[in-house]
């Protein structure tokens, strides 16, 4: 049974919006449009200042992760040259398998491709090249090799899949991407972002090289930065500070959502250090209109680490062999 907890939820409300859980950040009691409320969450203007992770805290999180991985990955001959990839999907699947639901292997479908195509379409709209998400999605689907990764799409890539489709299937992919991109486009007040958010940049990977290699994938649909003064004595010396990640999620929130959201922050923190990690990760479920904000602190990252270790433990089986991703970062180094 999938149970949505009553605590910790944001409801973007007319009249008031709040959460009553540990990540509670009250929004102003005003009739806020959805775009304003979600944008407030991303820019951190909706409530109290989010906690930061300092270097000591990150070192503790990193050590906890390495200890956890070492405890579940035993050195055996069967594990040699294996790599276990963990992303948000795997964390959710780990919860599902614990609940008895079978895990299905990935294959490209219009539904699976809607994020990839939708993000490419959204980028075109935000750059002002195409007026609407529907037109942009049509353009992306008609020229996938141009918009989705270069002139020679890799084997198994979304671009290759789209290029192989007959017209009716392409129409299905276009329709799904149009719906996805339109929902995201209409959910945020884009003019309030300065600098402009980075839309759908490549996933980041952090690697751990033990008896089994473990690769953690940090995925965010939107990475929001804010400008801040480098020094009060040097006006104009601005720098960019990572404020938040937005993840657009299908369906409705589940108990594993918190860990899935926090994974992108964990990977950024491990790869690039605490000062570059986002302060908040916002999950948004357009199908049910819910948003959930996870403030990135040591406690939140610790919960993600526990979920990662559990997922790795579930996957360290002889039949779960995967190839290591090419962009795997240097193993075991937090930065």
């Amino acid at each position, binding site marked *: 049974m999938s149970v949505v907890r009553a605590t910790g939820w944001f*409801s973007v409300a*007319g009249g*008031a919006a709040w959460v009553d859980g540990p990540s509670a950040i009250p929004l102003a009691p005003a009739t806020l449009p959805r775009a304003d409320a979600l944008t407030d969450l991303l820019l951190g203007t909706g409530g109290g200042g989010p906690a930061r992770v300092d270097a000591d805290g990150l070192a503790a999180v990193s050590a906890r992760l390495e200890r956890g991985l070492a405890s579940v990955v035993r050195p055996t001959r069967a594990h040699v040259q294996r790599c276990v990839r963990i992303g948000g999907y795997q964390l959710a699947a780990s919860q599902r398998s614990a609940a008895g639901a079978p895990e299905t292997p990935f294959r490209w479908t219009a539904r699976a491709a809607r994020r990839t195509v939708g993000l490419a379409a959204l980028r075109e709209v935000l750059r002002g090249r195409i007026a609407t998400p529907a037109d942009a999605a049509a353009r992306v689907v008609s020229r996938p090799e141009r918009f989705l990764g270069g002139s020679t799409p890799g084997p198994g890539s979304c671009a290759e899949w789209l290029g192989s489709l007959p017209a009716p299937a392409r129409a299905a992919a276009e329709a799904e991407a*149009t719906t996805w991109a339109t929902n995201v486009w209409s959910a945020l007040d884009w003019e309030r972002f300065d600098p402009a958010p980075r839309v759908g940049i490549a996933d980041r990977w952090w690697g751990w090289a033990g008896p089994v290699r473990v690769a953690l994938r940090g995925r965010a649909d939107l990475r929001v930065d804010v400008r801040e003064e480098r020094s009060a004595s040097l006006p104009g010396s601005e720098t960019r500070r990572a404020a938040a990640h937005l993840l657009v999620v299908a369906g409705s929130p589940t108990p594993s959502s918190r860990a899935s959201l926090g994974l992108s922050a964990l990977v950024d923190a491990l790869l690039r250090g605490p000062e570059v990690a986002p302060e908040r990760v916002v999950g948004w479920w357009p199908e049910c209109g819910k948003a959930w904000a996870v403030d990135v602190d040591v406690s939140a990252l610790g919960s993600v680490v526990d979920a990662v270790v559990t997922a790795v433990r579930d996957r360290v089986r002889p039949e779960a062999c995967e190839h290591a991703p090419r962009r795997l970062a240097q193993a075991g180094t937090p930065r």
Partner: protein
Amino acid sequence: MTTAATLPSVLDDRPGPSLEQVPEAVLSPTGPVVGDGNPFDATERSARARRAQRVRGSRAPSVPVSLHHDDPLLQLRAPGASRAPVDPGLAGGLRAWLEDAATMLRPDDCRVIVTPDRHAAAEGDLASSFAVARHAIARTIFRMVLTGAMPGDPFDDALVALCAGGTGLRSIELIQSMSGKDLASLRGVARADAHQIAATWRRPAARWLPRTAERICVPLAAGAIELRVTADLVLGTPSRGTASVCLVEVGAGAPAALHARSRRFIALAETLRSGAPPFRVATYHPGPSLLVTEEVSDAMLVAAVEDAVDAIAHRAATEVSERGQ
């Protein structure tokens, strides 16, 4: 209730309305939305219960209007019709009402999914696998036409689109299990439905922000109960000020009471999801080529809540019964 002649048609070759001419509520990319509040807060719940009580005594249900129409998009937009202002407390009141019922009716240790299709199956109109398969294919063709892809062989193209879609597995399995005679018959009606759909609908203007096959879900009772529905076409984005969304379903067979319930259900789901009710819901019946539109009113949403409570009770009882056997 509907006026169709005052705006340029998107179906002819004349230029459509410019961005400036389209109502702001339909255009706004940052469509303001008011949402529901926290259903678990006691103070807010009692306030919402009062609002819900106020809603229960509101005006009479609106009457569906059936029209054969050359341009269904104009009929859906009805540019001359007035659109109701959004009551910011309405969605919260309806949700409080549903949450109360869901909390009482939720079964232990199982999840209840309530969909309007299951109501339909219970009515018998969609009970046969043939009707279900026909409906799935008609919806797929509808989506293809709205995306600008005119099907060549409607049946084969719809199957290809269903396979690629990733969500039509059950429909594919259903069709694969049909006999040769039924398949031939299904191919014939799919062709007839596709002809009607292609003759009636075209790709909507992109500035109306059309979305197809948009899924809406409303978790209740901490996720133990979920209302689910898929709108075949959504136009406009939710607005804080004025109801501005129009939702369309593809209906199976001729118009019937179950379609009216389904319209109410989808209006309720959209209201709870976005916090603002849609201004209009419609059912398109490809067989008779009929578009039934209905204005969304407070009374309609109240009726939808009562339907949903009945459906939750029915589904919960069924789940408990099935687990007991």
